[in-house]
Each structure stands twice: as structure tokens, then as C-alpha cells.
């Protein structure tokens, strides 16, 4: 199973790199010969859309600011988009005034530290009464590929062929991800000797230990879960590490019930206060 998952990740990374290579602008000499051709075409045609350079530049500026505004508004930055259309209308369909078209879209961009590349197909059928639009295929590649929490939700979005759910969940996931990183960083800065982020602030675990209490450690596991409906929520757990001697002295079974008590504490104090109270447990002696 692991080997297969590793292969999936390797394939996804390779596909992402290949896509980037495809999107790179063509070599200058190829571009100029194309540009020459289209320049001649436009010059020869009677297009009314002929704008002066100045108008074009200001219009472009306006469009670009609209784009950057949308990007700020949604938090989603689209860097590239292309589409191909294929007309599948048969002659019988045309007689019944039915139009059938397949659109193949390629979209890439990022939402904060997560980059995505989407390839999807939309089937549009237009008859006399209405236009129906159905997503018939969806392929998603996200980076960083090692983020296991993300790959779960990618497969879910692909199964449901739900683009909107993908972007919605992506937003909330990134929100929680950034919040977790900020929180871990904050505690690391406030209690540098007690808080240990062995895998960095972006990882899902935070260790609490102090030199004055060797052998004791609390490990906070903070995962970001995505359910079937695409709803994103945090899931926090507490792991304890204590010397055997302490376990024997623990008549009230505090260590054993710690994980459960932690859940209750979360409900009462909220995430930040709960974590801080646990950190302070290890700090009190030092502050004396």
C-alpha cells in the first residue's frame, strides 16, 4: 500500500513539473514568427477593435487590478487558464435544435502555500428549454504532495466531481492550516525552552517538555480533517509520555484519563487557552 501511495505522489509531482514545462512561453524565435503572422492578419483586417497602445495599456491595467482584487477577495490566485471546446452535436441533434459541447479546461494557481493544477471536463447540452452543464471529469494535483491531509480531500473532490466544494474546502483548510502554524509559532516564541516543534511550525504536532522534568512529555497532535461533505474541522489529541515510576505513583489515573480530559478542556477553554494551560504546567517550576 505504501509503495503504491509513494508512486502516486511521485507521479503527481512529475505531472506538475511536465505541466509547467508545457505552460512555459515558446522560444522567442517561434513566438516572433507567430506574432508576425497575426500582426499581418490584424493589420489587414477591418477590425473596429483596434485600440491605440495607450488605451490598451490603461484597459489592461484596469483588468489587472480587477484580477488582483478578485484574488484578494477570494484568497484564491489563478495564474493560468486555458480551454478547448469540442462540438459533439450530431446532425440528428441539430434537427431537434439540441447542441452538445464538451469543454476541456486547464486551470492552475495557488491559495497561500498550496498550489493546485486542475484539469476538468464540462459537458453542456442545450435544448429548447434549458442549458444543462455537468462536470464529467475532474483531475486535481496539489502541492505540497507530501501533505497527507490534502491528498485525502483531493480524492474526495475528484470522486464527487465538485469544483466548488474543492475550492470551498481549500479555503477553510488553508485557514485552519495558517491558524495552526501561527498558534504553534506563537507558543514557541513565548516559551522557547518548553515548546518543541520537531517537525517545524507547519507540522501537526507540538511537544511540551522541560529540562527540569526529564522523562515527561506532552505531545499535542492537531490534525485538520475534511469530511464527506467537504467540511473542514480541527481534531486535537493529547499523547503523554511519562516514566514508569510516575505511572505507578499515579493512583488517581490522571495520566490514563489525560487524553479524555484534554478534549473536555478544549471544549471549555478553546484551543489556545487549553494549550497554554498545558504549557504552563511545565513552566511553573522554572518561574519560581
Amino acid at each position, binding site marked *: 500500500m505504501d509503495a*503504491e*501511495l509513494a508512486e*502516486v505522489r511521485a*507521479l*503527481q509531482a*512529475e*505531472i506538475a513539473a*511536465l*505541466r509547467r*514545462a*508545457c505552460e512555459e512561453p*515558446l*522560444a522567442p*524565435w*517561434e513566438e*516572433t*514568427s507567430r*506574432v508576425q503572422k*497575426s*500582426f499581418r492578419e490584424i493589420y489587414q483586417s477591418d477590425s473596429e477593435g483596434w485600440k491605440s*497602445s495607450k488605451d*490598451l*495599456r490603461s*484597459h*489592461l491595467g484596469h*483588468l*489587472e487590478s*480587477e*484580477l488582483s*482584487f*478578485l484574488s484578494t*477577495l*477570494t*484568497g*484564491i490566485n*489563478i495564474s*493560468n*487558464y*486555458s*480551454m478547448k471546446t469540442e462540438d459533439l452535436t450530431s446532425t440528428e441533434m441539430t434537427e431537434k435544435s439540441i447542441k452538445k459541447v464538451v469543454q476541456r479546461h486547464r*486551470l492552475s494557481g495557488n491559495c497561500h502555500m498550496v498550489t493546485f493544477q486542475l484539469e476538468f471536463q464540462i459537458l453542456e447540452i442545450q435544448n429548447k428549454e434549458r442549458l*444543462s*452543464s*455537468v*462536470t464529467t471529469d475532474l*483531475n486535481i494535483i496539489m502541492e505540497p504532495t507530501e501533505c497527507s491531509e490534502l491528498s485525502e480531500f483531493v480524492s474526495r473532490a475528484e470522486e*464527487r*466531481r*465538485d*469544483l*466548488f*466544494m474543492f*475550492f*470551498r474546502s481549500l*479555503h*477553510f483548510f488553508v*485557514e485552519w492550516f495558517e491558524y495552526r502554524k501561527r498558534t504553534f509559532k506563537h507558543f514557541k516564541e513565548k516559551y522557547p525552552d518548553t515548546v518543541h516543534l520537531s517537525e517545524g511550525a507547519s507540522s501537526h504536532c507540538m511537544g511540551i517538555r522541560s529540562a527540569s522534568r526529564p522523562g515527561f512529555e506532552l505531545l499535542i497532535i492537531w490534525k485538520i480533517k475534511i469530511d*464527506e*461533505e467537504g*467540511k473542514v474541522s480541527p481534531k486535537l489529541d493529547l499523547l503523554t509520555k511519562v516514566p514508569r515510576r510516575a505511572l505507578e505513583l499515579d493512583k488517581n489515573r490522571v495520566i490514563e484519563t489525560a487524553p479524555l480530559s484534554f478534549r473536555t478542556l478544549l471544549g471549555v477553554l478553546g484551543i489556545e487557552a487549553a494549550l497554554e494551560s498545558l504549557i504552563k504546567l511545565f513552566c511553573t517550576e522554572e518561574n519560581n
Partner: protein
Amino acid sequence: MEQTNTLCQDGESKGGVLAHLERLETGVDRSRKQCEELQSAQAVGSALATKIHKLRCLRDKLRAEVKQRQARVKASIANVEPAQTVEISEQEVLEKKQENVKAILQAYRFTGLSGKLTSRGVCVCISTAFEGNLLDSYFVDLVIQKPLQIHHHSVPVFIPLEEIAAKYLQTDIQHFLFTLCEYLSAYSGRKYQADQLQSDFAAFLVGPLQRNSLCNLLSFTYKVDPRDQAFLFCARLLYKDLTVTLPTDVTVTCQGTEALSTSWEEQRAAHEILFCTKPLHQVFSSFAKKREMLNMSLVS
């Protein structure tokens, strides 16, 4: 397995046929369950294998594309004379950029959230979909000033827009927009399921489908076999969480005769679980398929 004949009214023959039917149904149910269990175990393994295959094909296709591009570049190097220097018109560059930017602006509609700048601020358009089907869109016209205000909108009155705006609009506009998306999307999905039930599976319903405007409380009476009036089920679906498209509370009761045979009780319980885990119209679609399978086995 012999069933007790609660339906037996006149003689052995009637009880015999019904009992036979019940046995067949149980048999179909059991073999279906076994099949599904096996399938789901295999599915996990084969899903991964299929995914790997799909990714490999995509990667090979892209490799070929990249090779083609490289070949084209090589060919054009051979064709271009070293003395040929052409100036790219600034016009061309600008027009190309403009096309690109316009395309990306259009692409935002795929995120479900798109917006157009207005003289006062921005008009945000929220699109909804369910199972890949594009459904209704809603707009919210925002005025950019301190404090941010909603000028007007097309959000239905039963969606708690004011509540969501009060919580998030001033402090975190992205959160406001995506939360509103959640509510509208879920409402759209529930409405779609109820509409599908009424239009495609009307034959299974006895009486009207009772629904509220939020589509989060549904009540209806149905039969599993359109031709058989004997057993009616009453279902009540409640979606307490307004951001979900599957019910949070389901109650299915049996109408009809007094004491229930165990197989009908099993069905009733199974239906409750079905309604909790599958979209409404898919549940009825599975009823229709089951009927077909049963008919086929009777005929054979």
C-alpha cells in the same frame, strides 16, 4: 428459513406466495450485501490501482506533448536565418496579455465565487452545484466603505445572511463569503434532491412531498414497490445543520397492518440508514433498481 405468515388470510396458497416473495427478497438483500462488502474491499485496492494507471497515462501524454514542443523548437531553430531579427510589436504583447487576463477573470467562476467591480464596490456572484450539476446562482452587492455594507442581494430570506454578515463581514470578508457559499450550496443541494424525488420518483410517493422553504424538513409517505399498496413507509428527514446535504435526523415508520414481520422491520431500519448516508434521489434510484432485480429473478 420459514417466515410466519402475518398476511395469511385465506389459505395456504396466498401465504405461500408472499412467503416465497419475502424469502426471495431476503435472499436478494443478503447476496447484495455480500457483493457490496466484497466490492468495497476490492474497491479500495483497485481504486488505488486505477488511480495509478490514470496518472501514468496522463504523465505519458504530457511527456509526449513536451517532446513535441521541443521538436518544434528544434525545427524552428533550423528554419530561422541568423540574420532575421523581428521586433515584436508592443501592441501584440499587450493584446496577448489582455486575452490572458480576461481568460483568468472568466475562470474565477469555476471557484464558485466570482466578482465584478462596480462603481460602489464589488458585486460577488456565488454559484452552486450538486453532484457536478450546475444549479442556481446568487449575488451579493457590496459597498466598499467603512463599515462594509451589503447594498442588495438575491439571497433567499430564510438563509441567515444577516447573522453571517454580523459575525464575519467586517473582520474577515473571505470567511464571510465562503461561509455564505456553504449555506447556499447546501440549500441548493437539498432543494435539488427534493425536486428530483418529486419529478423522477413520483411513482413511489403516496401523497405530496411536504417540504419547507429551506428544504431542511421533509416529510413523505412512500412505497418500495409502485404497484404494491400493502406496505407504506412514512419518512421524516430533518437537516439540523444548514450546511449539509445529508439529513441529521431520520425517522422511518411503517403504515399499514399492525404487527410487522421481521423482514419489514429490517427494511424499515435499513431505509433509515440509507436516508442518512445517501442523497434522497439516489435512495429511490436504488429502490427502483432493486425492484428490477427482483422482477428479473421472478421471471427467470
